[in-house]
């Protein structure tokens, strides 16, 4: 796929950061507002797809390789499973449970307790959940972008094959 006109490219450049930031916001605030890893990841990936459509798959394949994306994807998946494994951290005693939320109310990362009653949402709560959201978000961004990229380049190859 080759790129589109200059107007489209410019406007994509303007819109891209906003879409990106919005997607990242949805990922990070997954435990407070509707949304989460998948939804935010899909938004970010759609921003990447927008770049793909505007600038063409040939241009983008020079910037980023499939193998890099697939490593990113597996890092996301690994970190999700590792966060689940962290629940087992209390070794040799039966209190540890797979997927247990070890960071909640622990005063470490995302570890503050939620105050009772209606109040402004505190992002520094919910323990493992935001971390898992981020991991899922990473995986979804990489995976959906990879799918779109591979399909775009595949159509390119088919077109070349027909021209021969």
């Amino acid at each position, binding site marked *: 796929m080759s790129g589109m006109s200059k107007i489209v490219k410019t406007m994509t450049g303007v819109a891209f950061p906003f879409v990106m930031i919005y997607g990242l916001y949805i990922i990070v605030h997954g435990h407070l507002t509707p949304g989460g890893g998948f939804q935010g990841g899909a938004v970010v990936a759609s921003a990447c797809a927008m770049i793909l459509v505007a600038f063409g798959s040939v241009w983008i394949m020079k910037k980023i390789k499939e193998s890099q994306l697939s490593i990113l994807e597996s890092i996301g998946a690994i970190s999700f499973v590792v966060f689940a494994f962290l629940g087992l951290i209390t070794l040799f005693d039966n209190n540890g449970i797979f997927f247990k939320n070890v960071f909640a109310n622990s005063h470490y990362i995302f570890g503050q307790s939620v105050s009772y009653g209606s109040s402004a949402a505190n992002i520094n709560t919910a323990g493992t959940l935001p971390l898992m959201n981020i991991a899922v978000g990473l995986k979804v961004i990489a995976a*959906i972008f990879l799918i779109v990229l591979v399909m775009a380049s*595949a159509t390119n190859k*088919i077109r070349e094959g027909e021209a021969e």
Partner: protein
Amino acid sequence: MAFYIPYIAVVALILIGLYAVVFKRNLIKIVIGITFIECGVNLFLITLGYRENSTAPIYTSSPGGIMSLPVPQALTLTSIVIGVAVLALMLSLVVHIYRHYKTLDARKIIGGDEE
């Protein structure tokens, strides 16, 4: 009566999807039919989650009354995520089928003995 409209839509979506899968010959249309069935099932799940005059289950400042359990939404979301993966896989297989057979007619893509 209005309460039943979503269920009618569910049945209609599933039947339309099945019709497309069974009677349409184009592979892309078959894929679309499967997406229709998926939409119908997702709509069904969402409809089941509705409770009249209920509030969101945020416990800290609940106004009281019944709350609706957000489980169906979670199920639907999971189902959508899986649907995306299946759709991507099916479409990429269709791309490969087109490469081999140069057609998307389901009647012509029937396999057969190894060449």
